[in-house]
């Protein structure tokens, strides 16, 4: 996967100050949500009005903050707000609004078909991603202004890279549409002038296309000039490899990398104490799993002291699965 937010590579970043948009990204399960929430809390404590945004469709920010969040920003504490983007709800609201507008602008003969088509668009393959991106762009525009800083807790890497590539891609598409519409409008104006008619009313299509263009341009600009990306990983084989790939893609795209955050590093304390505390917590959780998922069989797979990187280790895990009689 390769992309560029800009047409030509620009020289090294001049990010001396702090960027207002901060992203936490990385492989699934490395602790992005935890670190993003911690960082947002830190900014808020320092007196910056901060919005924490979860873009991962499988949200867990609510769980970590211990407060039910929604698709609209909720106040969590002093200077701290959080939102879990609800792409399905956003798409539905957008399409319902178009439906209402259709009632005024569309003839009764086609209206039923139009409504049916709009309803069906809600479940188009790209709809949720587009709605997510739409909200993403709107939230970026709230800072500075409503918020001093916005912290994005993103979905696993591939999804996030896509989110960052979209402004450039969509800008180019909409740019083409704006030009085409301008061409058509220019010709129509000429024809009207020939016929001696004046054309005082504006062009709502062109207005909307230009508004879209403006939003995408703005997002693209902010992602290049006002963004810091923190890559989260844990000291294990697969996250290291994924971080390497993501780093290359992000720097190629002109995104400023703040730091690599290596999470879940074992602390330097007497091993016995640490292990005892971990084991204690583990047995609490194992008990909870038994009690909460009573309708399902559970199978425990023991962790290898070494990372799983060889076929032999996979075989030993496979043996545990076989013992559990999985089919």
């Amino acid at each position, binding site marked *: 996967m390769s992309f560029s937010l800009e047409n030509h590579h620009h020289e090294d970043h001049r990010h001396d100050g702090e960027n207002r948009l901060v992203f936490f990204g990385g492989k699934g399960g490395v602790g992005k949500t935890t670190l993003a929430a911690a960082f947002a809390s830190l900014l808020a404590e320092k007196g910056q009005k901060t919005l924490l945004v979860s873009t991962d469709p499988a949200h867990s920010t609510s769980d970590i903050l211990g407060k039910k969040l929604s698709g609209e920003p909720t106040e969590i504490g002093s200077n701290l707000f959080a939102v879990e983007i609800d792409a399905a709800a956003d798409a539905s609201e957008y399409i319902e609004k178009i439906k209402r507008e259709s009632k005024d602008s569309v003839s009764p003969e086609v209206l039923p078909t139009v409504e049916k088509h709009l309803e069906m668009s809600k479940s188009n393959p790209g709809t949720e991603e587009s709605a997510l991106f739409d909200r993403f762009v709107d939230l970026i525009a709230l800072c500075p202004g409503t918020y001093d800083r916005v912290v994005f807790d993103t979905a696993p890497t591939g999804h996030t890279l896509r989110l960052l590539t979209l402004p450039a891609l*969509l800008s180019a598409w909409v740019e083409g549409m704006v030009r*085409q519409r301008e061409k058509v409008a220019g010709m129509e104006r000429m024809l009207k002038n020939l016929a001696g008619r004046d054309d005082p009313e504006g062009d709502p299509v062109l207005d909307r296309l230009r508004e879209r263009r403006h939003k995408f341009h703005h997002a693209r600009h902010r992602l290049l000039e006002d963004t810091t990306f923190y890559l989260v990983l844990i000291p294990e084989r697969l996250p290291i490899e994924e971080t390497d790939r993501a780093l290359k893609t992000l720097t190629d795209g002109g995104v400023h990398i703040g730091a690599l955050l290596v999470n879940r590093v074992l602390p330097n304390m007497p091993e016995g104490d640490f292990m005892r505390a971990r084991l204690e917590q583990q047995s609490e959780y194992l008990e909870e799993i038994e009690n909460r998922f009573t309708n399902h069989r559970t199978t425990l797979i023991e962790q290898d002291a070494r990372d799983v990187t060889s076929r032999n280790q996979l075989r030993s895990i496979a043996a545990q699965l076989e013992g559990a009689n999985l089919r």
Partner: protein
Amino acid sequence: MRHIIEAYQKAEEFNREFFMGRWRAGLQKEAARQEDALMAMLFLEALGIPNPTSYYTLELYPEFVEEFHQWHMRMGMDTFEPGFCC
């Protein structure tokens, strides 16, 4: 003198009708062609071609649906993508 002016006015009118009329017809045709191109860009998805902007152009769909109907008839398709306009 009056005859000369009238003759000139007639000639000019003829000139306008003849040349401008042809130019206008050409312009009209070109405008329709460009409008078709725009329509295709906006609603590629309905033609079965994936388009990353289709969600965002959906808000223009009510504005265009009648024209779209005319358009596919002009393109020689009597029905189009059941559910889009007819």
